[in-house]
Structures are given as structure tokens and as C-alpha cells.
């Protein structure tokens, strides 16, 4: 199945692109997708602890199973400075 992967801010800069179209086999989870992305872009390693994952614009946990056409976003922390 085809999955859109979106990368933002630091992650986009590390990978060099903000949008990737990847093919995964049915039953792939968000966690497995993240592992595949980290394997292909090892400079992202270490970032996975603070990474927030969203599927179709909603924050999800790593065990969510992906479906054809899903948009998965890898979001760096949005810490916006002092109150």
C-alpha cells in the first residue's frame, strides 16, 4: 500500500525533503514505518524519543495499523518558547 510520509522543521532539513511516497506491505504499523524511515535516514536517530506521530492530521500511538492512502507525519516538538 502507498503511504504519504510528511516531515517538518528539523526532520525535513535532515532528510532534505518534506514529503515522501513510500510503499509498505499491508498491516504495517506506525512504529514499523518510523523504524523504516530511521533505517533509511540514520541522521534522524536519537530524534525518535521526542517525535510526535500523526496519521491523517491526528496524533496516534505507534501500534496504529496503517491503511492505503494514509498521510503519516513525523513532527518535531513544537516547543514555542517562554510563557
Amino acid at each position, binding site marked *: 500500500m502507498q503511504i504519504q510520509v510528511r516531515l*517538518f*522543521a*528539523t526532520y525535513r532539513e535532515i532528510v532534505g525533503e518534506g514529503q515522501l511516497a513510500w510503499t509498505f506491505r499491508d498491516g504495517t504499523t506506525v512504529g514499523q514505518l518510523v523504524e523504516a524511515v530511521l533505517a533509511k535516514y540514520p541522521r534522524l536517530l536519537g530524534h525518535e524519543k521526542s517525535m510526535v506521530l*500523526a496519521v491523517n492530521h491526528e496524533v496516534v500511538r505507534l501500534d496504529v495499523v496503517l491503511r492505503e492512502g494514509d498521510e503519516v*507525519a513525523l513532527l518535531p*516538538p*513544537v516547543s*514555542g*518558547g517562554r510563557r
Partner: protein
Amino acid sequence: MIEIQRNRIDVEAVVDSVRRNDAGAIVVFLGTVRADPDVRALDYEVYKPMAVRTLTELGERAREKFGILELSIVHRAGRVPVGGDSVVIACAAAHRSEAFAACSWVMDEVKRIVPIWKTEAGPAKRRARRP
């Protein structure tokens, strides 16, 4: 009114968007780009559909949590120069304590969970602003 926009924010229009005859108080927050020796502007990167969705949900939660009457949030995307408004939040309520509490809470949540990232644009360097 929930908007992510590249152009300047019309503050009066945001305020007017929350006016109601049963409101006795409106609290408005403007986040502005502060001058810094190395900063000419801030660049805002926005995951727009998710940001709009999250802001809309924040508005609904603020209504339930504080009993406010209306809430608008407008956030810039792209480059905002020093002195410019990067975000304007307006909140109307029957009485002022709810309006202040809701507006402050919403801004904290915007900084905490809305997918918007900022990068400093200086005369020479360009780096992520530290939290």
C-alpha cells in the same frame, strides 16, 4: 474564525469576529516577533491541515472548559518581520475572568500542541530558536 495565513493579521477584524451582544468582556492576545541582535524575522513552518484541525478543537475545548462565547485564532505562516504579529487570539465571554483564563490557556496550548515551528532569520545565520 480559525485561520492560518501568509499575509498580515488584521487585529480589528479578529476582535470584531468575536463580538456578541451578550459578551461583556473580550480578551485579545498578540504574539509579536521580538527584536534580538541576530534576528530580523521569524519563519513559521506550518503543517496546515493538522494546525487548522488542532486550533478548531482547541476552540471547542475552550468553550467547554471556560464557558466562553466566542474564540478566534489567526496564525501567520512564512516570514514575519520583527514587530509583526505572528498570532492573534480573541476571546469573548460574559465576564472578564473567563475571558482572561481562556485566552491564556489557549495560547499555552497553541505553543504546546499545534504543529507550527519557528526558525530565526538573521542577517547571516539561520538556526532553530531554542525553546
